[in-house]
């Protein structure tokens, strides 16, 4: 089973999420957040091979989705922190509002393009004055000096306009997979740690997000236990060796079957 959306062109994380959601429109009753989150996260793993801009935005939205998913997966008898619940609801509403705004502007953009195309069917005259009308040469201010002009030229000659959206971006994405391997390795030796320590070596926000996603994934498998006293306080991480061993054995067995 392949996702049709995979072959489509999408621009940015909201666009991707919109496509994932609407591609499920036919089976609306079976819509599940978990399915969409899984697909979304799968995309992030594949993103290294795609030229996509705004990668940290992808990961941030994924983090929100995963948070929502994690909330769904909690057993009902687990005590619920109302503050967390409220924060999550706000996050969800914000994401929803953004999706709606994004859709609205996509829709109106098509209308504006149509109008523009229609208007461009009328061609203006650009020839200007007849030769025998010789207007005084308007005085002109060149708003930069010679160095400024050189800077303008430099920028033009070094920018490739035909291939937009790629060359000015840092596309080396941190791998969530690598972050998981690293995180698990470090946790195995230190047993307890906190998130700040784990990401101390990261130089980019997007790397931190990758580690956060890795952490959520390991927590989902029970390999680590995660605690956070309150929002914005440090995230305490504890390694569960038994769970890690079980997981490891399961993986080896899976590999052996192939």
């Amino acid at each position: 089973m392949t996702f049709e959306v995979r072959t489509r062109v999408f621009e940015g994380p909201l666009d991707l999420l919109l496509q994932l959601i609407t591609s499920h429109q036919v089976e609306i009753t079976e819509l599940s957040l978990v399915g969409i989150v899984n697909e979304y996260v799968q995309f992030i793993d594949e993103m290294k091979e795609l030229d996509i801009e705004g990668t940290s935005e992808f990961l941030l939205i994924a983090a929100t989705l995963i948070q929502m998913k994690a909330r769904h997966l909690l057993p009902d008898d687990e005590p619920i922190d109302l503050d967390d619940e409220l924060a999550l609801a706000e996050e969800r509403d914000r994401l929803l509002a953004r999706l709606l705004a994004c859709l609205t502007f996509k829709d109106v953009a098509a209308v504006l393009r149509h109008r523009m195309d229609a208007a461009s069917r009328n061609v203006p005259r650009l020839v200007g004055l007849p030769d025998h009308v010789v207007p005084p040469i308007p005085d002109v201010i060149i708003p930069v000096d010679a160095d400024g002009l050189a800077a303008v030229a430099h920028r033009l000659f070094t920018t490739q306009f035909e291939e937009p959206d790629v060359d000015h971006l840092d596309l080396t994405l941190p791998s969530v997979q690598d972050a998981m391997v690293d995180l698990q390795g470090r946790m195995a030796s230190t047993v307890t740690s906190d998130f700040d320590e784990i990401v101390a070596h990261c130089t980019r926000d997007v790397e931190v997000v990758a580690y956060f996603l890795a952490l959520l994934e390991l927590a989902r498998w029970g390999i680590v236990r995660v605690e956070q006293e309150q929002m914005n306080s440090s995230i305490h991480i504890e390694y569960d060796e038994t769970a890690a061993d079980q997981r490891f054995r399961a993986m080896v067995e899976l590999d052996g079957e192939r």
Partner: protein
Amino acid sequence: MNSDTTRHLEAILFVAEEPVNTEELAEVLEVPVSDVIAGLDELSRTLTDDRGIVLKQVGGGWRLYTHEDALPYLERYASTDRVKRLSNAAMETLSVVAYRQPVSRGQIAEIRGVDSDHAVRTLERRELVREVGRAPGPGQAVLYGTTPTFLEKMGISAVADLPPLADHVPPAEIMETLEMPMRPESSSSGSTNS
């Protein structure tokens, strides 16, 4: 029989390389604005559908254009490819600027969910958007708005002539589709369905 004002209006609009507003026309022709308006009306009637040229009110002024029926022949005559179409990214960014102006790059990115600096720069180079001010407060982000060129390319004379945005808000069933998977209850092995 056209008035002198009408004839001179036609001559000026023939050579003008951008829309000219009535005040400017009145100044050049040394007649009251009301005469200009009457002259434009007369010119417009003279240039009826059986002519190759039309008069349009666009971008805050008036400009002569070829009749749209002639487009295929013009394309063959000039054989130059017409102005490159804007990408979807640029078109969406342009829509956000048009309806949210004055707006910063950060706000555009927030709405589109994707970095839009490249699109903004493309639109600036095409003179469809421009800096219209600076945001108050720290950072003083550049705020963007549309240009008279934008209005002209849209074939309208003011931003207020754009189709109302409210008409393009997704219908209820799409909103529901979006909201459904995000409902807290949706994935729990729910017994009740609202």
